[in-house]
């Protein structure tokens, strides 16, 4: 289903690009795609191998106990803390989150982890946001975003149960 959706979107954007810039646009788009892919390909493969390897060493009992479905609010807090501290792009973090989920982590903690990595990431904030956007904006955004991972951890499980 994902693939059909993606393929449809690629088709749609290709038509729009063709109408906007003709074949030159299509070529430019493909070159940009290739450059994007090349810039992350190495990390992407490494990230997936890391996720595969991590699955072997993740102690399932520990995961289930601390961030399993029964872990409640503590699990959500742990998930959020891990998400805020874990560095790396989506090619590392999303496969890792999937591995943790497969090893018995609950929906709430996994949603909190991903949302924390998205909204209150430690390294990205210090390395990128602070130098580019300055202290006042970064602090304001961080303060407002702080509860977001908890919200995700609390709200995602009931919606998930409706969908499965």
């Amino acid at each position: 289903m994902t693939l059909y959706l993606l393929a449809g979107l690629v088709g749609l954007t290709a038509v729009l690009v063709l109408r906007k810039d003709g074949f030159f646009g299509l070529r430019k788009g493909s070159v940009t795609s290739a450059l994007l892919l090349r810039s992350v390909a190495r990390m992407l493969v490494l990230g997936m191998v890391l996720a595969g390897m991590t699955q072997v060493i993740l102690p399932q009992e520990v995961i289930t106990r601390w961030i399993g479905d029964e872990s409640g609010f503590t699990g959500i807090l742990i998930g959020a803390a891990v998400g805020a501290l874990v560095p790396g792009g989506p090619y590392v973090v999303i496969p890792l989150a999937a591995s943790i989920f497969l090893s018995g982590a609950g929906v709430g903690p996994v949603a909190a982890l991903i949302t924390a990595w998205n909204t209150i990431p430690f390294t990205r904030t210090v390395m990128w946001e602070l130098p580019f956007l300055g202290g006042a904006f970064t602090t304001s955004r961080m303060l407002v975003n702080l509860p977001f991972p908890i919200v995700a951890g609390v709200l995602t499980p009931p919606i998930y149960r409706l969908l499965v």
Partner: protein
Amino acid sequence: MGESQKKKAWWRDTTLITMVSLLAVVSLVAFIQHGVDGLRDGGENSLFIIRQAAPALFLGFILAGFLTVLFPPRVVGRWMGDEAGVKGVLIGAAAGVLSPGGPYVMYPIAAALMHGGAGIASISAFSVARNIFTANRFLVYELPFLGVPLALAKTLSTLWLIGVGTLLVPVVFRLMPRSAQEAARSRIGAAEQEKTE
């Protein structure tokens, strides 16, 4: 985009070194715990993940390339810079959702906007939307790796936070000391020049 990164020697690329070290540690632990079987299982898991995600990843990258042609970052920036009020906020949020690429694309755009005088509300909308929901990240990474129910449930439960963030970040920003607000705006130009040099 990422020019300086490309020219860097591999052994000076801290992200790569961190990744390889992490992988080495995890593999070592797998070997100590389960011997050669552990490494083989890990390899099989990795191949499974790669095979499962590859088609979606491939399509996702093509999509990202086409989106960049349809919405060139500079042009989007100009739209956002020119438009004030609700329209600027909506364009900002849409730009955040559609913007492809990593932080090296996002922050220079945001900084250029701030420096160019775009409203703090539009920049907040852009920044918060970019963090909470990115079309590319959702389609390329979240759907294939997490599966439809989890990816969708997480997205539905957080999407409305874009609105909350867009409304609240400017309010908190105005509570900051005036000097810090001014410093934010002036520092942006300097950081941008450093990065592009």
